[in-house]
């Protein structure tokens, strides 16, 4: 029993961590949290089921098309819901515009795909074992994304440019960095990561439109606990969240597990509004 809690908890934690990284990648590029983060995860599952199970694409091709779909939604988010409201960041219109976009995608999926959870195909024709692909795929995806992002940020020129934009937008622009191009790239990258999360976790979470708000919420918990923009914090907090949720699930039952997660989230946030790895308050006057 303990093993299955640890396995499923870690796997779910990896999915939450990936969604948190999706939030972070978008946030770093634009100082904006987008409600489409969870929608991307949901789409990863639904598109995977659509292309591979329903349309019969080979797994590898389907995988690439799903990631491309995620990148496309990332770009649409940037163009439609983020760029037009960046000028007046202090009015927080991005909360509404990204919410609107997320709802449109979610609703479109519900109507055109299905309002019921649909099975996600088994990606590899392996026999079911204890340490099954539905558990190790999210873990693998999470590890690949984290290592990949670290390499990107530390060892490539474009990665340095991302960091520069995240650190100080104005200074980066003054240095002549193509801020808009980098932002769009970041959003596309975030789209790929979000879709990957949903794809890798497809077998656990199924292809279901209502995964969007769940992932939007549970993916944001690690962001807020780990500190905004902090990917390592997000992974640690994501794993803790997954394990906590599965343990609570086992101990007190599924529904009250969500209540427990929510209560912990609120209490921690109220105690440390800037996350456990707090950032300094801005000057207000």
């Amino acid at each position, binding site marked *: 029993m303990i093993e299955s809690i640890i396995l499923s908890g870690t796997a779910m934690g990896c999915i939450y961590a990936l969604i948190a990284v999706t939030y972070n990648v978008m946030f770093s590029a634009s100082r904006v949290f987008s409600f489409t983060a969870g929608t991307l995860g949901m789409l990863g599952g639904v598109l995977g089921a659509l292309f591979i199970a329903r349309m019969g694409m080979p797994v590898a091709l389907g995988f690439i098309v799903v990631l491309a779909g995620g990148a496309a939604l990332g770009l649409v988010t940037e163009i439609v819901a983020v760029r037009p409201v960046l000028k007046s960041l202090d009015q927080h219109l991005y909360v*509404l515009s990204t919410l*609107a976009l997320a709802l449109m995608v979610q609703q479109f999926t519900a109507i055109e795909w299905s309002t019921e959870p649909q099975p996600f195909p088994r990606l590899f024709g392996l026999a079911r074992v204890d340490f099954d692909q539905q558990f190790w795929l999210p873990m693998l995806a999470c590890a690949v994304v984290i290592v990949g992002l670290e390499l990107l940020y530390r060892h490539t020129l474009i990665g340095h440019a991302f960091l520069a934009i995240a650190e100080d937008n104005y200074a980066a622009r003054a240095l002549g960095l193509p801020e808009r191009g980098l932002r769009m790239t970041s959003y596309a990258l975030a789209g790929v990561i979000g879709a990957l999360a949903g794809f890798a976790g497809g077998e656990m979470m199924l292809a279901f439109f209502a995964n969007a708000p769940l992932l939007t919420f549970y993916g944001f918990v690690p962001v807020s606990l780990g500190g905004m923009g902090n990917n390592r914090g997000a992974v640690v907090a994501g794993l803790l969240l997954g394990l906590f949720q599965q343990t609570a699930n086992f101990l007190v039952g599924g529904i009250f597990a969500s209540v427990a997660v929510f209560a912990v989230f*609120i209490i921690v946030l109220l105690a440390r509004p800037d996350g456990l790895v707090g950032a300094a308050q801005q000057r207000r006057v």
Partner: protein
Amino acid sequence: MDTQATPEATELRAVRTTGQGTPGALGAVLPFLVLLAVGVAFPLFGGGYWGVIATRACVYWVLVSGLNLVVGFAGQIAIGWVALLTLGAYATSVLAAGNVMPALPPYLALVCAALVGAVFGLIVGLPALRLRTFYFAITTLGFATIVTQVALAWQSVTGGGIGVPGPVFPEPFASQWGFYYFCLGLAAVCTWMTANIAASRFGRALTAIRDAEVAAEASGIAKPALLAIVFLFSGAVAAVAGGLFAALQSYITPDAFTFDLSVLFFIAILIGGRSSVLGPLLGTILLTVLPEFAAPLVAWSTFLYAALLLVIVLAIPGGIAELLDFRNRRPLESGRAIVPQPRLVARLLDAAPATGALTLDQLGLSFGGVRAIDGLDLEIRPGQVHGLIGPNGSGKTTTLNVISGYYAPQRGAVRLEGAALPPLARHLRAHMRIARTFQTPRIVGSASVLQNVMIGGTIHGHGTFVESLLSLPRHWRDEAMLRETAMLALAAVGLERLAPVRADRLQHAELRFIEIARALMLRPAFLLLDEPAAGLSAEEIVRLSTLLLAIARAGVGVLLVEHHPDLIFDICHHVTVLNLGRKLAAGTPAEIRSHREVVNAYLGG
């Protein structure tokens, strides 16, 4: 003296007449009366299914009216308010059905549900006191998902997926139209109550929290207390709406409370426009009725709402209310001048001046390795203008922020008449009669100039939130007093002609004078001004200086942070020069002007 009295009286009469046309006139009530008349006459035109739609619109509005105070006025992004509808629906149904205790009459069940809703409204809302925008939005979203899950799981009480029957209200409200009139009546009462709040000092304080939080704090508005009571109210009416919803559905399951409903409530407010009651009311009716006109649209309704939200946010952030605001589309008179009437200041500031001084005592504050303020002594005496000058980064604004409670001093203290001011208690400064203005004017752009100035007097009202809600006499007395004082303050700074204009249409210099008028509303003993002359023309600076002198003459101690040497040397009784957080020199303007180091370091020459 006698010769002055007559023109002053006429000026004030002029002031009063211009004040009349602003809020509360018949024009503002008329649309509501028309809607009510249509609502009352509705059973004559439509029947059957349309009756259900109309009842549903009323039920939704009961919830949206309360949520409007949270979202539209206080600007808190509460997207999961369907949770309170769910809660109210289940509380009413379960209590009326007697699942947990002996069955209650439906009206009593509804009242109990309102109490439960108020408590949970507060619980859901409390995070807003500490969390910003997206965080709060996410917590309400999380709450909404959880309430539905609990409703599913708690089978012994809620019936789980099978559900429970809704309450049945006895005659005369049992029939379809009877129930419709019951809902319509509650909707009308909610409209009336929230419109009362909107037009009260509480409504203005909420918009100040939304658009100019630091100005709200400086005016003494206690955000936690105000938001808490708004969340209580909003939760209560949402739960009442839930009880009505359950009765309308006659049977409820968790499926009935989808997140789509939350979206409808939220978007109705934004489509309607912020700080408006009429706009969100029209928005609610529109969103309830719209999908019914074309059957295929019903499935797509949430998609359309979301698309509409996107369009509204990107194209017309002001919503319907702004489209309907014809008055503020008339061009303003160009080339208008600000002509303060310093004579009126004495009448406005009729409270007794402070007996002692506001003193800084060896004040010290560092940010990391930077000593922003380093052992500063300063004394602001009643009736005097104290100038604080120095190069950029010398600690002037930081000093002001320590006095008004944005930073806690690490060493030393700020004393008022000898007693140390509590550090970081920002909104308490107003209660100690310390007012301030800001380097960048902090104004509620969507409110009128008059309303902006009235915000400054919020703490002088005596009526409670409930009295304003029910429009009791003290509410009216407060409003009349605040309006009259605000018109006087506006006349004193020379902006009374702009009283009904939206503040965001004004020029920069005018905003600076509005801030002064708002600060004067406190009847302050001490007034802290952060670069009031920045961006003003030479002529306006002269007018500002006569105004400031009049304020000092009325007994107010003025701290003037400025860069304009002329203004400082013309009107200050005492000047302190800062450099790198330390006092470089202090003395009378004449002494400072001849101080060698000051001339070298700062004045040049």
